């Protein structure tokens, strides 16, 4: 499903060149639950941006479901993000002035779904994460854990093949964090492919496969559980 070969990403900061990704090879199959773990600055978010088609690599190849992504233009990348990837961010990234339901509807708006379909699927998606009674709450009226669940509902609403989560528990207390991880586990059991990025070893161990990254290189790739 995902195949990355010899991927490099460099940031040029004046005189110095930061090698955020330094030759990554990674292969992820459908239905996997992979944790990418590493210390701060190791290149996790950069990798996530590549996997999520938010950015293009300096060199290397990236096949996502048979299409070579590293060569696509901005609009094509937007289409892929819309239909193939569900993002869950550390900072939730909900739009404050929209209700939970409207936030979840957003990806479907850009997909071009009818308003009836949007409403039904978004409602169902929120019910799936246990927020069926919070449809019309604004993000500010929800707890951190609830906001992150809205974000997960949003990531799932278009039924994308891949869920990408960058430090999804980073802003949460451990109880809410555990809830979120349990949701991911459940989603994985239902067949979703999940890539979870974290600096927390303890959380990483809840995945089925752990990929360790250090200075832009993969140092370890192992099955767990």
């Amino acid at each position, binding site marked *: 499903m995902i195949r990355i070969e010899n991927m490099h990403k460099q940031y040029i900061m004046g005189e110095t060149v930061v090698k955020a990704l330094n030759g990554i090879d990674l292969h992820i199959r459908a239905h996997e639950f992979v944790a990418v773990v590493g210390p701060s600055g190791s290149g996790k978010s950069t990798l996530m941006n590549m996997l999520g088609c*938010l950015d293009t690599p300096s060199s290397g190849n990236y096949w996502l479901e048979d299409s070579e992504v590293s060569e696509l233009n901005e609009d094509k990348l*937007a289409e892929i993000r*819309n*239909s193939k990837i569900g*993002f869950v961010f550390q900072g939730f990234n909900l739009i404050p002035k*929209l209700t939970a339901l409207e936030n979840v509807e957003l990806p479907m*708006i850009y997909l*071009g779904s009818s308003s009836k379909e949007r409403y039904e699927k978004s409602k169902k998606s929120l019910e799936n994460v246990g927020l069926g009674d919070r449809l019309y709450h604004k993000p500010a009226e929800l707890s951190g854990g609830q906001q992150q669940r809205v974000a997960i509902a949003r990531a799932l609403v278009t039924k994308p093949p891949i869920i990408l989560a960058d430090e999804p528990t980073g802003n949460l207390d451990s109880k809410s964090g555990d809830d979120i991880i349990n949701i991911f586990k459940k989603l994985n059991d239902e067949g979703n492919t999940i890539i979870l990025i974290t600096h927390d070893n303890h959380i990483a161990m809840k995945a089925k496969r752990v990929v360790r990254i250090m200075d832009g290189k993969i140092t370890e790739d192992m099955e767990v559980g």
Partner: protein
Amino acid sequence: MGTWQAYRMAIKSILSNKIRSFLTMLGVIIGVGAVITAVAFAQGSTKSITDQLTSLGTNLIRVNIRARNSNRDVKYADLADFSSQNLDIISAIAPSISGNVTLKYGTIIKDTSLIGTTPDYALINKRSIQSGRYILSIDNDLRQKTAVIGSAVKNELFPDTEPLDKSIKINGEIFKVIGVLEEVADGVDGTDDDQVIIPVATAQRLMKNSRISNYTILATTAESVDLAMVKLEEFLLKFYSDSNSFNIFNSAQMLDTLGSITGIMMGVLGGIATISLVVGGIGIMNIMLVSVTERTREIGIRKAIGAKRKNILVQFLIEAVMVTGIGGIAGIILGVCAITIIGKMGLVPAVYSPIWIFVSFGISLIVGVVFGMFPANKAARLNPIEALRYE
């Protein structure tokens, strides 16, 4: 993404910041309101003058003597002679002396305009008498201090008494009211009703001006106007060395002049409108730029979950156009209210102009597109990763 969605988003965004949206619209509201009001009054006064000119008919010729201190000044008597020798083409001639005077009756004081003229003036100007009589030749011959007053003068000086045979003071001199003019419903600013008419000979003394420089002449038919003008010119050239010393013009020429004045007026209004709309547009651009910066993160989120450049561009553009469009509608409402109120007060006649209402609405939409384009494009080009990182 359907356009309907973009509209909904725009409405939401506008409503989420009502005061700011309103202040942003204000430039457009005032611009459009001012344009519509100004156009209505410009067209209104033009229309009433035009109506008046056309109601006087196409037989009218005006002569205006410009030269001064000539030892051979043309006299009313000369022109009266001339017209009696040309009865086939000229049916009436009236001299006029005009000025502003102060009327007094009892304790009531009123400023009005005075016209000194002859009996023909009523015929030429199609004025009729409501009560009493008009000026007669004998009033002129005897330099009688008689006055015919307009209905507005009557209403102010004689609110509940009969004016006939009452004595009023015009600039301190005593005159007898001999008649009241019939009211002219659609007169310009009511000036046709707000006037006093006295014999021209009396006026020459009262105004300390023995020289008459304005004459109104009625041709027998519309066809004889041109011939009458030629003959008048020939006649006047006996008194003056060149044709620059006097002006002879007819109703059609007056309408032409009026048309060009209206054109200039509309041009000036258009200029003012353009400036105010540009200023409004710059205000919108400014606020939209602030809004794009404030909503950088939102833009990042939208892009991350699949919004294309086009979607973001359209979203912000529609928002800008909606702000100016709503501003335009509010401006139209404001303008129409202003027209109605000022019209009710009877100060200036107004004409509602649907074309201008549509045009100014259209222009406000264009302002939205033009000035919204730069901020919207800025939003559309944001890099999603940087936008998401923006705090």
